[in-house]
């Protein structure tokens, strides 16, 4: 294996974070209420120099309390989905694997909805009640991953097409369950449920939930990163990796749990957003190669950039109304995916 050069990783990450920074500034500027680039720059500088008392109060609520939290949410959701997608693709040795295609996102959505339904019947402290949805989403994601994995086995080996079929069928079954809940439940606060189907970032999660999202992202992504070298060896096949001394069972366990956590957290705050987990790892692989020690961090940045761009478009194209960001990622993602697929075939 090619030795990892620290400077190469740093260079890639520096380039990507510069792009992310530019994207965030643009996203901060654009929105239903116009904000001048000059005013925005002045406010950002004041924040950097801790002179918050001098902030022009005019739009700071809009920029710092509405747009920035939403952009941060997009960054973490996008990064979570892309890292989960990259690790699923490596572990299942399947370029089509991603949380959405495998039904993991739908499983997380069903878990979140069930949590939403049982929550009023349990008398919980508000902070605990707020965390019930992410926990339900994580459990839903983990159960779905397990089920799809076992359904995708053929004579003890993961079979690509069986696995994908199992994922797609599970996803459609779980979507039908969501439809069923939507049709039969009344009286509660289920109006937002359509958002689990399409995915959107317009609903700010409660404070405790966004803290858990950030913390969980670093924890799970860090855990996956410790298996990066093993994932590289796994690309050659499970048996081959085992002969090379990889503890395949441990890697599988770590990656499944961590990727389910990433998916569950992302889905619980944003619904099921497709294509980010599928496409971003592919693009990063084309750009920076398939060494997971570089791929995983670059995919995190790439996912963040992609989702912030998609969400900025979603909230500006038909302003002041909004599109679901999941529609935006699909509109941009599907043709790009087809293009990449054709190019690979050619």
């Amino acid at each position: 294996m090619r030795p990892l050069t620290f400077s190469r990783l740093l260079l890639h990450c520096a380039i990507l974070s510069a792009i992310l920074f530019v994207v965030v500034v643009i996203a901060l500027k654009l929105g239903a209420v116009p904000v001048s680039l000059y005013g925005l720059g002045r406010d950002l500088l004041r924040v950097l120099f801790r002179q918050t008392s001098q902030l022009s109060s005019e739009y700071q609520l809009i920029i710092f309390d509405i747009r920035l939290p939403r952009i941060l949410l997009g960054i973490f959701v996008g990064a979570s989905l892309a890292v989960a997608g990259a690790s699923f693709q490596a572990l299942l040795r399947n370029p089509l694997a991603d949380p959405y295609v495998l039904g993991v996102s739908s499983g997380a959505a069903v878990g979140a909805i069930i949590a939403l339904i049982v929550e009023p019947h349990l008398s919980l402290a508000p902070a605990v009640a707020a965390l019930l949805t992410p926990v339900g989403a994580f459990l839903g994601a983990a159960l779905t991953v397990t089920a799809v994995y076992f359904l995708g086995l053929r004579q003890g080996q993961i079979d690509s097409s069986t696995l994908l079929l199992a994922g797609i069928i599970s996803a459609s079954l779980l979507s039908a369950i969501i439809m069923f809940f939507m049709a039969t439940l009344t009286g509660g606060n289920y109006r937002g449920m359509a958002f689990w189907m399409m995915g959107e970032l317009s609903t700010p999660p409660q404070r405790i939930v966004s803290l858990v999202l950030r913390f969980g992202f670093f924890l799970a992504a860090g855990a996956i990163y410790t298996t990066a070298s093993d994932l590289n060896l796994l690309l050659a096949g499970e048996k081959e990796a085992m002969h090379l001394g990889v503890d395949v069972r441990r890697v599988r366990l770590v990656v499944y749990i961590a990727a389910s956590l990433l998916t569950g957290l992302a889905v619980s705050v944003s619904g099921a957003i497709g294509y980010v987990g599928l496409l971003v790892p592919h693009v990063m692989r084309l750009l920076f190669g398939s060494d997971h020690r570089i791929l995983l961090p670059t995919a995190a940045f790439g996912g963040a950039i992609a989702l912030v761009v998609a969400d900025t478009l979603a909230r500006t194209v038909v302003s002041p109304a909004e599109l679901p960001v999941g529609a935006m990622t699909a509109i941009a993602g599907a043709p790009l995916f087809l293009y990449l697929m054709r190019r690979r075939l050619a």
Partner: protein
Amino acid sequence: MRKDAQRIILAAGAVTALMLCPATLCPTLRAQSPTAIPAATRLNKDFVDEVGRTVRVPQPVQRVISLAPSLTETIYALGLQERLVADTDFCDYPPEALKKPKVGGAINPSLEQIVALRPDLVLVTKSLNRLETVHALDGLGIPSYATDPHTVEEIVSSTERLAGVLGVPDAGAALAADLERHLADLRQRLSGLPPRHVLFVVWSDPLISAGKNTFIADALRLAGASSIVDSSQDWPQMSLEEVVRLQPDFLVFAESHSDSGQSQFDLLAERPGWRGLDAVRNRRFAVISDAVNRPAPRIVSAIEDLARQLHPEVFSAHPEGEKEKKIPPSAQPPLSSSLMASSDGDSTLLEVCVCAP
């Protein structure tokens, strides 16, 4: 060959790098940014809204944003339109409400627009708006007052309470008294009459009606009708079989444009299964204003309109006392009496054709 140490350093480095930039920036900012509206020297008054939250409302309320068409109508009915600084894309009544600045839809309003308009108070209604929107407004320090009427009676009392919150209790009391007077008159006229069995068509494709716990079901009751739908779901999707089995006396449509109700009826009548309905064969249907779909004061006039169409006999020009003698309950025209749409079709004036049995 494992370079565990290096990997861990790398991971830790990446984590701290990421943590340092945005994640830590936000909380400090949130703590430092001041609350939305400078409360300055204005007085605040606490109200308990209809979902039980205590809302601190600056007095007097000068800038209101409505996040529901019904609330927009109520504000106009109370004569407070000058204080309405924005409403939703769906607020279309009265027509002037269309010209107000918009903050997007009721389900997904633009928080940015709301903040930019610096409202004293945002009005929401539980049946339409989302809890998440209210949470988000709370987080931004913008007070929001929620209404939650489930019956026509509650629509009236809710209107009166809202008038109190907005600082015009007298206008609220007058409006409520007027509405009550109309309802009492209606109740008196319709007393003793058997209710018409109706199918209220909320949406025709797929067929959606209103459940028994909605204010629409209550409005139908007050208009001397009873819905054939006995569902605890608010907006049940009905199967045609079920409708044919229950054989409604009348189909009721709510329309904003007066003649599209009839075209809606004609469309339904052309569909195969619907011809089996007596109400369709005899063209018995009523078209009322879509005000019936909104929990706002205007619903009372829609109820009166429906009552007139379903029970025309008690709305003749004669004063009430005489009418009671002329048409005793026993001499009620039987169900064969049908409302026929006038033949020219461009008018909604419905004529009564009493076919003697």
